């Protein structure tokens, strides 16, 4: 499959950038590689081809999620090069790891075999452990890396035991065989299968950072370099949810009554813990970590829908959340390098320093909190309506309450930047590429908020 091969070759070429002294062009190389992969990927639309002896199938779901992940990664590489490029000695290696981790994300959204699910999860996670510890001398980064690593390896154990028990029950790793088996045996209780499903659920809930498996998230998001945190919060979460929804929709929907209770409880706990804890945070990166936990809670609602509405809802939400979250973290990074603090007061008087930046902050915060005329509103709308159609009215009521809690803390940076006076009056200057890209992300947010039909149905 061309996408995976293109990404792998790009990754390997990048790796040798520092050795054969072409490190200056490695960012360009990664962008070209990602663009090629995106083009290849979009050519698979509506083809439904299967690859590697039925290990992966590229249906519209895979194409859509893969494209989202690759576009976000390309944005991130442009910003990474802008912010870190000159004083980062490991630029080629970092770019290589980022590109290869996108490879894992592609595998995670297009697998049809549990082996590929495991490999995809691991390719993504191992790259993330490395990225979290990029600042070798910084203790916070060290702590983030070891915590992410230990928790990630721990959750992989649960995922693997779940896969094994399902293999024990069904004698196959292939999703179609498993789903046939589950369909035939949906009335009788098979404890091997059920415990397998629950253990996979635990493993994947760890990966998407849903409560009560969320403890690593705030520390990792705070400790890792800000621009890498943007990567974790967007590509990592979107790919994990892509894998999560695919597995449970394709295989385990006949026994939805067995696991829907768990998802419901986890979703409620996740939304409340995420939102209420985010209220008390001073550090913005930590606040956004908790808010990303809350977003995982909303996205879990889509897993409960009985039909393909859920897939469309989760795709739209991923795009909306990915774009806004990316620009939010980028802005935090800019503010952090400017003022030296990653707390909300760093935003004070931003409107006097740079009008465009303040505007983009406002738009991304509005979208994250789900105000109408932004993409975030329709994301929540689709998610909640898919859950209501499946009959989870109470759950949706709780989710709406949580959205209102969210508005409070999302407006903190906006209020700071528009109504508070800044300590210093330094003008924040941005390079044109950064400004264009940030404006592009904001325009996408608003366009999707007005014309939600732009995202095709899958």
């Amino acid at each position, binding site marked *: 499959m061309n996408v995976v091969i293109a990404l792998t070759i790009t990754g390997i070429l990048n790796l040798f950038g520092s050795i054969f002294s072409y490190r200056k062009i490695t960012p360009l190389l990664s962008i070209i590689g990602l663009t090629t992969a995106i083009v290849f990927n979009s050519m698979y639309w509506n083809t439904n081809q299967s690859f590697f002896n039925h290990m992966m199938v590229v249906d519209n779901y895979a194409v859509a999620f893969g494209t989202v992940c690759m576009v976000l990664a390309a944005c991130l590489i442009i910003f990474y090069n802008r912010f870190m490029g000159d004083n980062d000695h490991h630029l080629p290696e970092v770019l290589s790891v980022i590109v290869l981790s996108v490879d894992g994300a592609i595998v995670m959204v297009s697998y049809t075999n549990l082996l590929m699910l495991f490999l995809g999860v691991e390719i993504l996670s191992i790259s993330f452990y490395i990225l979290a*510890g990029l600042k070798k001398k910084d*203790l916070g980064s060290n702590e983030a890396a070891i915590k992410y690593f230990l928790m990630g390896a*721990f959750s992989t154990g649960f995922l693997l*035991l779940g896969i094994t028990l399902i293999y*024990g029950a069904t004698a196959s790793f292939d999703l179609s065989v498993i789903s046939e088996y589950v369909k035939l045996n949906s009335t009788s209780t098979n404890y091997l299968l059920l415990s397998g499903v629950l253990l996979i659920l635990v493993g994947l809930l760890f990966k998407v950072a849903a409560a009560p498996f969320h403890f690593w998230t705030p*520390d990792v998001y705070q400790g890792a370099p800000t621009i890498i945190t943007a990567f974790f919060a967007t590509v990592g979460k979107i790919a994990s949810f892509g894998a999560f929804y695919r597995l449970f929709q394709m295989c385990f929907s006949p026994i939805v009554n067995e696991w829907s209770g768990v998802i419901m409880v986890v979703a409620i706990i996740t939304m409340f813990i995420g939102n209420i804890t985010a209220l008390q945070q001073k*550090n913005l990166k930590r606040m956004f970590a908790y808010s990303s936990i809350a977003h995982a809670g909303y996205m879990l609602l889509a897993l409960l829908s009985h039909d393909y509405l859920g897939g469309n809802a989760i795709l739209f939400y991923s795009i909306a959340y990915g774009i806004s979250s990316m620009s939010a973290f980028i802005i935090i990074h800019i503010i952090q390098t400017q003022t030296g603090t990653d707390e909300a007061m760093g935003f004070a008087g931003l409107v006097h320093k740079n009008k465009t930046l303040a505007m983009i902050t406002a738009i991304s915060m509005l979208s994250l909190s789900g105000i109408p005329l932004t993409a975030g509103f329709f994301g929540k709308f689709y998610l909640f309506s898919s859950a209501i159609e499946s009959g989870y009215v109470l759950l949706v009521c709780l989710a709406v309450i949580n959205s209102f809690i969210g508005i409070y803390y999302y407006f903190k940076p906006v209020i700071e930047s528009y109504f508070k006076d800044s300590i210093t009056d330094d003008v924040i200057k941005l390079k044109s590429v950064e400004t264009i890209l940030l404006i592009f992300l904001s325009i996408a947010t608003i366009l999707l908020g007005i014309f939600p039909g732009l995202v095709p149905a899958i």
Partner: protein
Amino acid sequence: MNTILSIVPIQYYIILSAILFSIGVMGVLTRSNAIIIFMSVEIMLNSVNLLLAAFSTYHNDAAGQIFVFFIMAVAAAEVAVGLAIIVMIYRNINTIDIYNLNKLKG
């Protein structure tokens, strides 16, 4: 191979793997030395390997054993990255006790 499974029923393998897995989980949750936590994770993965091999023989299907290969290879990659992280931390704070890593709080 089938003679072994006719002597030792598959349930025993499941129970043994469950015990090993629980030992690993307890190790991760209670120990504070990063290397020991790491070894506990490896016990978890190896209990899964054992169970996969047993199921593979039980079902007469080679896929399970191939999965074991992949788990081992990925675990080796994970070990390489994990040990590198641990060495990096050791160079900075001269200990690998994870309770000393408590800088990040909210």
